[in-house]
């Protein structure tokens, strides 16, 4: 059968893009005394530090996201659309830039530190915690907001008839309903934080976490064996998060029926919500404004005159070329990744055979592989191959890294379309290609726009997988941030972050515009 041939082809593609590279990484551990690596003092310290800092950051991040999503979803505040848009702005810049924003404000020479005469600054544990919260809570917010928004309102009405109080209602209805999805949100957030190396690299100081240690082992000492061992440890939370996510995705679908929540008038509650929302938005934008300003100041904090010297310096050492690299990669990943995800999702959602389920699993494996682990496996697997060292490998690694989410968007959209469309085509003698082009894709326009935007934005700001695969020729712009950080040129790093933010804001505007156009 023809569709099975295509599916086998896709499975082979995934074999080369993710399975074999991972196996290659695992194989380097064969000759390694794993016990020795894991019990080494440096390793166990990084391990516990990672665990501590990620647990605290996850707790804060999910709490903030929870309160915030309540404030938006369950009150009558106005401009909910705008609020949600502002809240996701942190998702448009690399995590490392959040660390930088914090340094500018709370660092040794930070604005706030100066004013209050604090010494030492916010490095180490709390720096990582707050930096991690900054970039992770919008993601948790989006998930929780959706969950709250679609919660069935009927049990609450019943509770009111019985006369249950607010606290009882929370424990009797909200918490049980939230339990499963909440666990999956917590794990997703935890995974995001424990596998990130941007923030700890920027602000961690002597507080070394696993990703930073892995980065140092591999890039600094070319110790691939130890790097792989750390990679394996980092795979574990991601794999758990992935499984939990799939479980709660399935069970959630059932509770999506029912009545939307009726929100009563309550001015006191709305006022509290407004204050919370306002505070969060300020907290989001202060660091962003800070690095936007810093980028154009002569020498912070010595000379506060406006200056384009840092921008000029960035361009001098190739920012333009790296920006071009980034844009080429992001546009190519956006186009090719979306095309591949659509094709892949069509095969699993609308051309169902026994192979479809297997291909579906292959397509979402990347959900369980952190960027730095993927990057490391790619180095080992593709070294010496034709594509190594060029833009192509960055393109491939980004498509693989970011594939699962857009793929699932397409899969869900395709699954919801009428299941008999292809049958109608067969009966009427309309070719499958025509049905796809003229009926299926036009009905998926909105999803396609979102997929393209997702690939683009993530490719613009990623520093994880690509950092193992870049050289001076193919480097994307985002990697100039750790480079400048290493040279203590925080103003230049700020400028680069700003450029990335600009490109991604542009993409978001384009996305919104296209979504309105295709509605």
């Amino acid at each position: 059968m023809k569709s099975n041939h295509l599916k086998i082809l896709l499975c082979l593609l995934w074999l080369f893009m993710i399975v074999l590279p991972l196996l290659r990484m695992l194989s380097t551990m064969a000759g390694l005394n794993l016990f020795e690596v894991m019990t080494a003092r440096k390793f166990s310290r990084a391990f516990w530090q990672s665990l501590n800092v990620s647990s605290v950051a996850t707790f804060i991040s999910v709490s903030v996201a929870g309160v915030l999503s309540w404030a938006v979803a369950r009150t009558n505040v106005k401009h909910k659309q705008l609020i949600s848009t502002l809240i996701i702005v942190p998702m448009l810049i690399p995590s490392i830039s959040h660390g930088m924003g914090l340094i500018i404000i709370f660092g040794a020479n930070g604005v706030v530190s100066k004013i209050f005469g604090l010494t030492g600054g916010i490095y180490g544990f709390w720096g990582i915690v707050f930096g991690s919260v900054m970039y992770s809570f919008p993601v948790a917010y989006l998930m929780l907001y959706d969950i709250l928004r679609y919660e069935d309102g009927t049990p609450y009405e019943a509770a009111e008839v019985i006369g249950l109080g607010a606290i009882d209602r929370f424990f009797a209805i909200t918490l049980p309903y939230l339990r499963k999805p909440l666990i999956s949100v917590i794990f997703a957030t935890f995974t995001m934080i424990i596998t990130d190396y941007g923030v700890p690299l920027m602000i961690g100081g002597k507080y070394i976490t696993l990703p930073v240690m892995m980065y140092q082992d591999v890039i600094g000492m070319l110790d691939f064996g130890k790097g792989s061992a750390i990679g394996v440890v980092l795979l574990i939370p991601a794999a758990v998060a992935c499984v939990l996510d799939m479980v709660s995705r399935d069970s959630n679908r059932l509770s999506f029926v029912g009545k939307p929540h009726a929100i009563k008038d309550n001015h006191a509650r709305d006022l509290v919500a407004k204050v919370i929302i306002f505070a969060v938005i300020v907290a989001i934008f202060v660091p962003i404004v800070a690095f936007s300003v810093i980028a154009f100041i002569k020498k912070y904090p010595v000379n506060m005159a406006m200056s384009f010297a840092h921008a000029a310096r960035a361009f001098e050492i190739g920012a333009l070329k790296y920006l071009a690299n980034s844009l080429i990669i992001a546009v190519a990943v956006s186009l090719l990744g979306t095309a591949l995800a659509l094709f892949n999702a069509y095969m699993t959602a609308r051309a169902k055979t026994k192979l479809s389920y297997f291909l579906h699993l292959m397509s979402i494996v990347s959900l369980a592989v952190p960027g730095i682990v993927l990057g490391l496996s790619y180095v080992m697997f593709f070294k010496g191959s034709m594509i190594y060292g060029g833009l192509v490998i960055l393109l491939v690694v980004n498509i693989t890294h970011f594939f699962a989410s857009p793929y699932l968007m397409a899969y869900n959209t395709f699954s919801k379309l009428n299941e008999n469309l292809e049958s109608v085509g067969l009966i009427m003698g309309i070719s499958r290609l025509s049905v796809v082009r003229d009926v299926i894709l036009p009905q998926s326009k909105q999803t396609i726009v979102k997929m393209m935007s997702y690939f683009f934005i993530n490719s613009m700001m990623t520093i994880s997988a690509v950092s193992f695969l870049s050289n001076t020729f193919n480097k994307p712009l985002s990697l100039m941030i750790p480079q400048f950080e290493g040279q203590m040129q925080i103003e230049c790093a700020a400028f680069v972050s700003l450029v990335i933010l600009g490109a991604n804001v542009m993409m978001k505007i384009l996305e919104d515009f296209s979504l309105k156009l295709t509605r």
Partner: protein
Amino acid sequence: MINKLAIENVSKSFGNVAVLHDVSFVVRGGEFLSVLGPSGCGKTTLLRILIGLETPDSGKIFKDDADITTLPASMRKMGMVFQNYALFENMTALRNVEYALLKSSALKNSYNRATAREKAEEMLEIVGLEKFFDSKPSQLSGGQQQRVAIARTLALNPDIILFDEPMSALDVDMRLSLRAEIKELAKKFRTTMIYITHDQEEAFAMSDRIAIMNAGKIHQIDTPHNIIESPADEFVENFVIKNINIKINSLIHFQRKS
């Protein structure tokens, strides 16, 4: 061409689940045949085999004495109407019909833009949708959407039309009016119609003959009158008696009509 269909010893299983067991029957040219049976007894599978969306494991299908068992669906000159309409949601009612006329490989480009449009308008008028040419399916009621689907099917001029519970998603009023219209179309186009339904009243009121099916077998195929008067076996008797009230009502209806 009298548009008759003969099914000979058709069997079909999915994996190790046998869905159809050695099914044989004949559909006469121009007749309206309903297929009645409990959920999961294989009605949809039977239709999908008749039209060519599935191939039987064994057995043959003849259309006017030509073996069509392996003929592609699009070459069988048969149409199918689905329970969930299966319209092209991104196209207007008119465009749905027009698109089928322009793209159908069976018609071999016998329509150009102008003639396809003319034909599409004509078909929508026949099903009473002259006011809704430019409406998208989402702007139409369930009954209207099913009318578009019927117009789209009829436009390709099929010899035989298969209906798979076309009205089970509609409310009662809509069913009654669409029921009358489908009967009229059958007469007008002299199309053979095979009609799956869960609604016994519907089957008894509309059909020239009814096939009673259970667990992958046809138990009886006969006129409504004969099925009630002399059920072939215990299953048929029980299956029909369960709906004794409906039966009496539709008998009255049936006799009033004939």
